[in-house]
Every structure is written in C-alpha cells, then in structure tokens.
C-alpha cells in the first residue's frame, strides 16, 4: 500500500502551482470572470502547450496518456487558483464523453483538436427538472430518416457559449437507463441556441441550450449506440465528480492558507487574532475538513484509475464529504477574516461562490449520502 504521490506527480504539482501563480493571478481571474468567455485565447494556448488538456487522453489521440490521479494533482492547483474557463467542461465533460462513448473516427476527429486547444467541447445532460438520475434525461430525440430530430431544453451546461461541440444526452425511447442516447452536435447546428446565464459564481459560465427540431441525421451525430448512452454517461459523470472534488480540495486548502496567514498578522486587543482560541479552534476544524476531503478524493481518484468495483461508492463518498467541507471551510474563511472577508475586493468570495456552485454540481451531499446508503445496502 502506498497512499502518496510519486515524484512526477509532485513535480506536476509544483509546476502547475508556479504556472497559475504567474498566469492566473487573482487579477487575471477577476478580468476573466467579468468577461463573457471566461478565458483568453493566449492563456488557453499556454495551458494547451503544457499538455494539460490532453493529460488523460491516450497518446494516439494527441494526449499524454496519464492517469486520473495525475489529473487530480493538476485540478487541485486549478481549484487553488479558482481558474475560470472551459478546461473542466472540455476535458472532463465533452472530451471525456467522446473518449468513453465515441467511435474511433469520432475520437480521431475531436480529441487531438481538443488537446491542442483548437476546439472546445461540453456536455448537456441536466434539464430544467434538475433530476440527477437517468429519469432526468427527457429531451426527446425522434427517429427521422437515418437519424433523429431533437427538441427540448438543457440547463446548467458549462461553457456551451464558447464550445465548438456539445454532447447532448437525449431520450430515444424507453424509461430509466435504457433509451438514453448521446448526440455529438456542433454548436453551430441550425436550431441549437445557446443562452449565457448570470451565475452566482462568475468564474463558472453556465448556459441554457435550446434545441428546436435539431437534425442529427448523419451517422457521426450519434455518440455510441442508440439507447445505450447511460452507461458511458454515468462513467463520465462519476469521473467528472471526482475531478470536481479535487478542484474543491485545492480551493479549500487555499482558503485555509489565506485564513491562517491573516490570523497570524491581524491584531485585536494587542494580540494576533490567531492566538485566541475562538479563532484557533475554528482553523483547526478547517484543517480536519481539508485533510479528510483530500484523503477521500485521492482514494476515489485511485479507484477511477484502477476501475475498482467500489468506484461509484468512492465517488459518492467523496462528493458528499467534500461538498459539505468546502462550504464550511469557505464560510469559516470569511468569518475569521471579519469585515474584510465580506468585501468584493478580497478574494474569499470567489472561493465561497465556487464552493456553493460546486456543491450543487453533479449532486449535493444529500443526494450522494442516499447513493452511499443504497450502494452499501443500508
């Protein structure tokens, strides 16, 4: 047993931390979040040049062929920098769906272009019902000629407004898991409309995607087999959930670091506030939350890499724990900073809002606790 990172992973971490400190400072983050795109072409190109977009894609598709644990290291650092932009949606949603469900031709067409930063992709699975299971996929795909025609609304689709392609989960029949199909549609497809939504967390751009009798007629419009889309989609969502947990861990660690730093310097009644137990004890609780979050996320990442049978359980344990922990830690960070922590000028609100958004992405703690209860046969 070895529950630690290897030298290459530690090197990736220090490289990534330095990169984001230089290229994605809080000033840069604020500029990006105010903008519509959430990213600049220059920064996106630099990220691509690091090989990070294709980190987990096989080498034959222009990737680096590394594992999920490696990706976790990188995502922790992105979460630490509270980096905006389409990295997550391209790599873990659109890209991963193509990797999991796509044909050899589809992978060959898309993955190398994603890896170099030429193209971006995302995934539209949630609908206005906000239901998380397969029953939530209700958008109708009606057979038409050799293909289908799609109509309906998808919600909470990250970065659809800057994506070149969107993978749409739709219902081609049946109920529940059977009858869910994945379609790979260029975002400029006629009838497909994207509307950017104002979000609490401005570093995360979410969209409404409306499909009005969209024609998905060509053979390569379907990603995988018709009606068999839930399984690959479930795998994508499980992996994306662990990746999100890693981002959240990085953010929580940064909030703890900022808070401890401040508590050492800020004076009240002639002493640093960190010397008061009311502050010190809350900081200790933050540390427990952060360390447990990392442990359970790393374990889930390992389970993903190994394809372990307990994978889905590990995913839900991680998301349940980390959702609560990041919320608590980011709120405590604001509290321990006092008034300055409530200002727009201080970076804490970026983390607090990211925590809130992440909490409800891919299912909140309540949802995942129930999933844990089911998976352990309570």
């Amino acid at each position, binding site marked *: 047993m070895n529950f630690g990172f290897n030298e290459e992973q530690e090197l990736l971490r220090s490289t990534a931390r330095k990169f984001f400190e230089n290229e994605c400072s809080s000033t840069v983050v604020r500029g990006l979040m105010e903008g519509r795109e959430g990213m600049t072409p220059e920064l996106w190109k630099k990220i691509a040049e690091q090989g990070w977009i294709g980190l987990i894609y096989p080498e034959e598709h222009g990737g680096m062929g590394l594992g999920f644990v490696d990706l976790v290291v990188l995502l922790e650092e992105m979460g630490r920098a509270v980096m905006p932009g389409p990295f997550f949606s391209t790599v873990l949603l659109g890209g991963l769906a193509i990797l999991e469900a796509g044909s050899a031709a589809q992978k060959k067409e898309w993955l190398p272009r994603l890896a170099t930063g030429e193209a971006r992709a995302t995934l539209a699975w949630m609908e206005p019902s906000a239901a998380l299971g397969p029953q939530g996929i209700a958008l109708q795909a009606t057979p038409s000629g050799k293909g289908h025609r799609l109509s309906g609304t998808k919600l909470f689709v990250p970065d659809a407004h800057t994506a070149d392609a969107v993978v749409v989960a739709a219902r081609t029949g049946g109920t529940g898991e059977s009858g869910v199909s994945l379609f790979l549609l260029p975002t400029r497809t006629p009838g497909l409309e994207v509307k950017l939504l104002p979000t609490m967390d401005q570093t995360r751009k979410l969209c409404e995607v409306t499909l009005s009798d969209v024609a998905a007629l060509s053979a390569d419009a379907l990603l995988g087999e018709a009606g068999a889309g839930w399984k690959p989609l479930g795998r994508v969502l499980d992996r994306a959930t662990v990746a999100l947990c890693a981002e959240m861990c990085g953010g929580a660690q940064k909030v703890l670091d900022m808070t401890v730093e401040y508590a050492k310097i800020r004076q009240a009644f002639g002493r640093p506030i960190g010397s008061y*137990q009311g502050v010190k004890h809350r900081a200790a609780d933050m540390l427990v939350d952060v360390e447990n979050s990392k*442990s*359970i996320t790393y374990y889930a990442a390992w389970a993903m890499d190994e394809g372990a049978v307990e994978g889905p359980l590990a995913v839900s344990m991680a998301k349940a724990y980390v959702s609560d922990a990041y919320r608590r830690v980011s709120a405590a960070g604001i509290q321990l900073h006092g008034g300055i922590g409530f200002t727009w000028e201080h970076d804490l609100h970026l983390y607090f809002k990211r925590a809130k958004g992440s909490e409800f992405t891919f299912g909140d703690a309540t949802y995942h606790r129930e999933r844990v209860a089911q998976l352990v046969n309570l």
Partner: protein
Amino acid sequence: MDFTLTPDQQAFRDRVRSWLKDNLPAESSARTRRPTSDIPRPEQYDFMRKWQRRMYEAGFVGLTWPKEAGGQGLSFMEEMILAEEMALSKAPPILNILAIGMAGPTVIAYGTDEQKRRYPPKMLSCEEIWCQGYSEPNAGSDLASLQTRAVKDGEHYVINGQKVWTSLAHIADWMMLLARTDADVPKHKGITYFLLDMKSPGVTVKPLKQLTGDAEFNEVYFDNVRVHESQILGGVNNGWQVGLTTLMYERLALGFGIQVRLRIALDGLVDMARQTKKGGVVATQDPIIRQKLAQLWIDTEAFKYTGARAITKLLRGELPGPEASAGKLMWVEGHQRLQELAMEIQGPYAQLMAGSEWAVADGIWQHTFLRSRANSIEGGTTEIQRNIIGERVLGLPKG
C-alpha cells in the same frame, strides 16, 4: 498511489486471518460483542490475559518492536493489517495495551540495557500489566503542573502525592510515573519519569466510580513510597521529554486502533438499526436516519484514508504531517455522533438499561453512549487537540 498489498503483506494478512479463525475462543464473540470496547471491563480480565498470551506466543504482539526486545521487527503496515483483521473477526483486544502502545516503546527508546532486558518481554506476554501515572487532580490538560513529589533519600526517591483517571491501576503491576524532582526550576524541567512497582508499600489504589456506574479508572495515592534510583527512565529531570515520547507513541498506537474501533461500532450500529423499528418503519428505511448513517459511513472511510496517508509518510521515513494530528479529533467527533445516533434510533427505548426485557440489544448501547462522553476528555481534551493543531500544525501563535 496504490492500495493493494505486496505479496509479503498479503501473506502476513493470510497468516493472521487463518490463525484468528483457528484460535478465536468460542466465548470471545459473546464476551467482546460490545459495539465499542473502549477499555476492558472487570469480568473480562482473566479471559483477556489468556488471550493476549496466546497472541504473543503466535508472534502477534509487539509487531513493530525490535527483535531483541521480544518484538517482531515489522513495519507499521503489518500493525495496521493486524488491527484490521482483528476488527473483522471481532477478536478481543489485547489487555496490556498501555504497555504495548506506550510504556514499551518508551523503555526501548530511553531505557538502560538492564531496563530493556527486564521489562519489555513481560509486557508482551501479559505477565506484567502497566498503567500510566500522568494526570493529577490539578494537572490534566496542563500536565506539566503536576505536584506529586519525589525527594531524593540516598539511593532512593520518596514519592508523595496523588494520580487520578488511572486506567487499569487496580490490576497493574507497574506504573509509568511522572513526579516532580525539582520544584525550583521551570515546571517542565523538574519532572522525572519513574518505573514504579505498584506493590510498593505506600501505594493505595481507589476505584473511581464514573457516570456510567463502572469503575474502570482509579485514584492512586502515594504515601512515602520508596523507589530505587535505578528505576528512573531517561535521567533525572528529563521526565517531560520522556513523557512526551510516550504520548507520541500513544497517538501512533491510537491511530491504528481507533479507526478500526469506529468501523466495529458502525457495523454494530447498522445491525442494530436494521433490527429496530422507528415509528413502525425499520430504522434503516427512515430517510433521515439513512442520511445520518451514510454520513457516519463516509466519515469512517475518510478517517481511514487520512490514516493511510499518515502511514504512507511513516513508511517513507517522513514524520506524520497534519493528517495525523487530526486523527483524535475526527475519531472523537465521529464516535460521539455515532453513539448519539444509536440513542436516536432507539427513541424512547433509549431510556432503558440492561436488565429490562424491553431494552434494545440488552442495553449495551446505553453503556457505550454514556462512556463516549469521556472520549473528548481522555488522552488530551478536544480543546487541547485543537490548540495542538492550531499551534504546531498551522503555526498560529500561542495564547
């Protein structure tokens, strides 16, 4: 990152597993089926002495101790495997836990050749049971304020004073005793660590009845107790350093055990919940109870993996980082919440103690619930643990 065992570790696990299968006493499951076995209860002592002896003879006590001290010279990994296998098979814990977890490693670290030859083997075989004489009525969290005096008289020291909360003192043969040998220097610098024979004249042990009704702790009084200077461990006035070493080992030893104890308690709780109806519905089907059980399940696993990260650091020869310091806090919070949930599941029946035919599961949860209140006090209060994390891990200034 890899959670699989090496072939050697697998072989060790198989050996433990098959030994436990063949050697677990039939009566053990009934004797030890308490959902948490914090500290053995009086009716279990004889049985547990024999059980530790058998484990010792099979080579399963003192795994990480060096061979010359009677140990097995193995790593923390084997220690963890053993703890998990014992939990899985519901094996009784070992009785002489204070000797194995604390006194032994400290004697091995600081003892003279004679001390190292004399004490460790009988700790392992359970021939001599040890207790820990640290806390006093006015020195708990602030341990360095201890007032028990040791005054030099020729080759001897004369001890006067009192200890309290002393587990196992009523059956112990030896005590790790911290006493003040110099009152004129700063309080940390005048303390000496003695190995005290509990049969010495002048030692009086009085059981201390707790709010559970049990008396697992004691008060120990010293009235002109004479100890030869050869019984000093680690040098005169060096007791604070030696005592801290003991506490470091306590935290390490505790780390393996408590993770497993939480798992045993949780399994017991899930079993109880499956057999208990709440408002006409099986408790595990109540959505609120399910949420709380699932959260405990998640916390227990998070705790386990946080422990695994600490062990990985130890195995790499690094010092345990922040993840180790958080262990006690996590365990206490989780276990007390678990015990509260056990009461919530039982509802009004939670009021009934053993002896009532209406009591759930013979009333064992009532005892463990009450006992769990001590968790946040014993072995360093929760407040002290938070201070330690705040100051030594996060680097916040002292108050």
